[in-house]
């Protein structure tokens, strides 16, 4: 070490190892790693010991066994003779179903209320304010209970119904409406839809390139929308309309026990799903409204004034100047709200909607394999959230201001 100090003239003599930040850092890290290793060794050895003591099997072999319990809502073929693995898959699909429907309505309502909050109209903005404060400050579980146990219990019983336009019917069994029945030949419609979506993307790319090159604009949004709606419709008509609507059958006469809706006619949304989607979307909408408001307020007023000075009309100012800049602020917290909604859908277990946690809980109770079931839960939710944050990072990079 002495040669080192001599080489660098004027440099102070090297401090002792005790005060060297690198050595200290290394030392602390080794301590932490050793401590953590001991901690995990303690946990793992205890767990192995306890599992042996309690005679609990380990491993994922139980997923092949017959589940033996049914479910009120399933997107795939599932019966009591299906396996535990299928049961968990049903739960996962139901979680995704709730998340997708919930996100759709929460975004819609959230944007509406966020804009209403900024309205010049006193009563509208105060209404939006009250909505946000009320819904944000009451626990979600309470809201789910309210919709399920208080509101949905006061709707008509099994043998009666409330109807909207004579197509949608609500009673204690759920919300029923006409279901589309696809006959053979309808697959061409799906192909047409896929082609149309691809073509719409191509069209918008071409339109953007042309605008960059020549400055000429092309209504690519409306053209794309027309394509996506029009092409499958044309194909549908050409193939002789291979789709028809099946209306739910309601028996008002006959033996008392057979009155009510006939099973398997039309689509049915079970009340648990209704309550969950209602509560989740209303609750999350309050948070989204605040995000939208903050996003719009973050666009400085100078931007609007500059656009006005350039003679851009008000509608165009909103669309081309304010919203693109607001979206940059809005999107990252918005995605984390979507993720929150997905995670909050696990509260379904409290009202018995068969989502991932609820189905997994039943499996856990039947097999006693807590470690494995909880590992599956955590793996699913973790991968969902990691995917979301990966998307968020990608989007942030794409949207970030390009500065010098």
């Amino acid at each position, binding site marked *: 070490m002495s040669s080192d100090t001599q080489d660098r003239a004027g440099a102070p003599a090297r401090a002792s190892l005790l005060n060297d930040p690198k050595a200290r850092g290394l030392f602390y890290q080794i301590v932490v790693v050793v401590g953590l290793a001991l901690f995990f060794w303690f*946990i793992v050895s205890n767990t192995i*010991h306890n599992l042996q003591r309690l005679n609990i099997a380990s491993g994922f072999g139980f997923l092949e066994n017959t589940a033996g319990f049914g479910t009120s809502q399933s997107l795939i073929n599932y019966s009591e003779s299906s396996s535990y693995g299928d049961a968990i898959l049903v739960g996962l699909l139901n979680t995704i179903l709730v998340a997708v429907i919930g996100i759709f309505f929460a975004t819609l309502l959230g944007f509406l209320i966020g804009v209403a909050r900024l309205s010049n109209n006193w*009563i509208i903005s105060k209404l939006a304010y009250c909505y946000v404060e009320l819904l944000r400050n009451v626990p979600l579980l*309470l809201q789910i*209970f309210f919709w399920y146990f208080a509101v949905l219990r006061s709707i008509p019983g099994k043998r009666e119904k409330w109807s909207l336009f004579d197509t949608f019917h609500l009673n204690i069994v759920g919300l029923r409406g006409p279901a589309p029945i696809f006959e053979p030949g309808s697959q061409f419609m799906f192909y047409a839809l896929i082609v149309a979506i691809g073509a719409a993307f191509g069209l918008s790319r071409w339109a953007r390139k042309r605008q960059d090159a020549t400055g000429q604009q092309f209504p690519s949004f409306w053209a794309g929308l027309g394509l996506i709606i029009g092409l499958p419709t044309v194909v549908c008509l050409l193939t002789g309309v291979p789709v028809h609507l099946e209306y739910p059958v309601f028996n008002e006469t006959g033996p008392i026990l057979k009155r009510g809706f006939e099973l398997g006619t039309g689509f049915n949304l079970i009340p648990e799903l209704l309550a969950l989607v209602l509560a989740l979307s209303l609750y999350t909408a309050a948070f989204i409204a605040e995000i939208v408001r903050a996003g719009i307020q973050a666009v400085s007023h100078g931007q609007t004034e500059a656009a006005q000075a350039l003679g851009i009309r008000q509608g165009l100012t909103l669309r081309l100047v304010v919203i693109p800049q607001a979206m940059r602020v809005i999107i990252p917290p918005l995605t984390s709200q979507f993720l929150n909604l997905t995670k909050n859908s*696990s509260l379904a277990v409290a009202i018995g909607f068969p989502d991932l946690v609820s189905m997994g809980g039943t499996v856990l109770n039947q097999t006693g394999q807590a470690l494995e079931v909880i590992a599956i839960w955590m793996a699913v*939710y973790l991968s969902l959230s990691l995917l979301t944050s990966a998307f968020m990072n990608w989007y942030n990079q794409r949207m970030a201001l390009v500065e010098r």
Partner: protein
Amino acid sequence: MSDAQMFQIRTVEAPRLPAPSSTTGVIGWMRQNLFSSIGNTVLTILGALIAWALIEPLIEFALVKAVWTGDDRTACLGADGEHIGACWAYVGDYMQQFIYGRYTTSELWRVNTVYGLFALLLVPLLAPSVPYKGINALLLLVAFPIVAYYLLTGLVIGDTVILPIVETAQWGGLLVTLVIAVTGITASLPLGILFALGRRSNMPIIKLISVIFIEFWRGVPLITVLFMSSVMLPLFLPDGVTFDKLLRVLVGVTLFSSAYMAEVVRGGLQAIPKGQYEGAMALGLRFWPMMYLIILPQALKLVIPGIVNTFIGLFKDTTLVLIVGMFDLLGMIQSSFADPSWATPTQAHTGYLFAAFVFFVFCFGMSRYSIFVEKQLHTGHKR
């Protein structure tokens, strides 16, 4: 012509007229904010209708048609087919259970003492003008938990019973809600600061561990955490070591919220300019003094809204413990529905309205307080 005829010079000041009545006062305000255009007028009418449609049934339910006194369900049933509102008599009858759970009735003074002590120590800490903040905080964070622990659970030295033991299974209602929330809040802040510092650390392993910890807890829903802590914690411990159910939940809640707290604090740390760190180092401060004296006071000040939001989230999330079989306020209300002596059509509505009111008061209070502190601490750079 003389000058006097060519020019008219005003020698008396014109009277000062008030602004047109259509732009001032109530009418002016209404013209500006409610009826400035046809579209706006339509919106106003629509909004008023919506507000009326929401408020009128609520007032009718909660006040006009409510039943305030009564001994059992017959009071809240009303005459044949009569529409009855909230059954506050039921809430009154159950109030003790909602606040204390099934805590031994003769020992309720202990819970009340804890509530009182907590309020006594918290209020002066929250009011900015009261001095002795340091001693106050020390009492609240160190002395109070010890006293509260023995008061709530009981104290037995040797064979002499000073305070009879009350099992945590008997706790319930607001008591459990507050115990979980306050413990979670106080324990998650220091843990969160530690992990936030860890995530910003230069030491790769510390940083990695912090990132994994934070992202893991943030990625999973609280329910799975609660299931994990109530099912898996006993497996992790050596044979024979039993863990109280409430304590298991507390561990889960604390770890979960400390991850969120860490992200909030990290936001504050990132907002502190590098010059502050360099300045502190130039003064010869080591890492912890630098953090304690220079960085954290500024960083935490910046993220007070975020911290309070995490607190509010945690407070609301305490309701989830009812899923793992504990009776917090909502769990107590939910279980009271099983009592046939109060079963009426409006029982559920009444119970939920009461719970919503209690939670709203706490959460809204916290958010208002955070806005107030934000204004108080907004010391420089105010334009």
